[in-house]
């Protein structure tokens, strides 16, 4: 299973046939393992790693630190459940450290993200404060080097 996940993390579009070759299994074996992992939500989904800085118009991504007051009986879940319903939100992480949640948000421009923070996020009940950091450049995302990956080896032997 580890080998399969490692391969899918590198390339989720790898064909069942190729996955079978690389893991020394049958195509059917690989297919049923993937199905099992999907059912268990170990594989929660498949996505595309985009270098959004190369898109026109260029969308904006922000990393927002959120401090909050946990609600009695619900802890942070109450706020998190609300956050998950916002389509602007790409990722939500519970953090250890200076703030409680890291929320990754994307929008078409700076204004859209700012409006989301000031109107939707900061106004939520349990939110104490937010600090918004805008992403200027992505160098690596989901394990992918977004700069040109060069083979530096020159000796052919």
């Amino acid at each position: 299973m580890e080998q399969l996940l490692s391969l899918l993390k590198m390339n989720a579009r790898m064909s069942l046939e190729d996955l079978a070759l690389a893991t020394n299994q049958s195509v059917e074996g690989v297919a049923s393992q993937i199905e099992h992992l999907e059912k268990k939500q170990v594989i929660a989904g498949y996505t595309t790693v985009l270098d959004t800085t190369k898109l026109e118009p260029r969308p904006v991504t922000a990393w927002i630190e959120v401090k909050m007051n946990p609600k009695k009986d619900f802890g942070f879940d109450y706020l998190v459940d609300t956050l998950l319903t916002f389509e602007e939100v790409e990722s939500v992480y519970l953090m250890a450290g200076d703030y409680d949640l890291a929320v990754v948000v994307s929008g078409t421009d700076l204004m859209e993200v700012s409006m989301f923070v000031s109107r939707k996020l900061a106004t939520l009940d349990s939110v104490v404060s937010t600090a918004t950091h805008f992403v200027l450049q992505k160098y690596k995302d989901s394990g992918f080097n977004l700069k040109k990956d060069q083979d530096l080896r020159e000796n052919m032997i």
Partner: protein
Amino acid sequence: MMNDYLKQVDSVGIRKFFKMASEYDDVLSLTIGEPDFQTPFHIREAAIQALQQGKTFYAPIEGFLTLREAISRYLLRKFSLSYCPKNEMFVTVGASEAIDLAFRAFINAGDEVIVFQPSFVSYQPLAQLMGARLVIVDTCVEDEFKVTYDLLKSHLTAKTKIIILSYPNNPTGAIMTYQDYKVLVPLLETFDGLIISDEIYAELSYGPSPHASLAHFPSIKEKVLYVSGFSKAFSMTGWRLGYVCGDSRWIEPMITIHQYSLMCSPTISQFAAIEACDHGDDGIIKMKEQYQLRRQYLVNRLIQLGLKPFAPKGAFYVFCDIRSTGLSSETFCRNLLDEMHVAVIPGNAFGLSGEGFIRISYSYSLAHIKSACDKIEIFLKNRTSRIE
């Protein structure tokens, strides 16, 4: 002007093929014999620190004692091999220097040297340069490219001065297990010479059994010169650092040559190597996981294509039988290069017994290997349809 022995050495060798490949600028190469992984960051950092601290002077002739102690700890921890850092080892400029020094220190013109092939391209020419009488012994795919009892017995004579072997093997990916070596030991006990065991790929062994070495056998250990280095295990090819371990009667004469020819191995590399020995295990595990996936993919894919790869148990090469195509190794490689711009190495570059095979390196990303395999598939299909 030229040294008479040098005249016998094949000056072109494997370079002929690389020159051909370099004529195309869109070649998909599967030729390279070095890891595609960068040297782990903590190892590079140790070198940077040494630089910043101004540790840029010559190192001791034998290498820093701290490094030799680290190598000694590493060999004991990883391979249960015990060598005294003070008088049973020294640090060389790559494992290649160690092999060169051993030949220079112990071969007199006319001495018999047994070289098992297919093997690394340097052994034969370096021994020839010393005027050795070469005894080329061909291992074969039927024996999984191992050195067998019969093979050794039929070539070992009273005149044999040196035996050189290397497992895990480049180019075949073959390994020798403890049991494989054990049957050779009685023969080697009677042998009164030097056994050079090049174990540069020791860390890259994929079988269930741990890496085995002739140096594991107490009755012959003092005849074994254990050669290894940092290039393959820690992705440190450009750092040019190796080491050689053995009885001081072998080590001392080699140090004499090393001291007059190179004086010492690169200082900065040695500081990096200390870090590699003591804290490099995790990096090796990660690297091996990737090699494992690529190895499985490549072997299975080649079988699918109707070829007969020898299933490698070590290193990062697949030695693939292409005799079913009716082509010689060189013609196969040349046609594949010309028609599909894919470069692999003809098996006979590693000795005549490699004829009928090609060496494919899987020291590349899986995507790269897949693209090359797709082209090999088209190449084979085109060939079949032409014949039909």
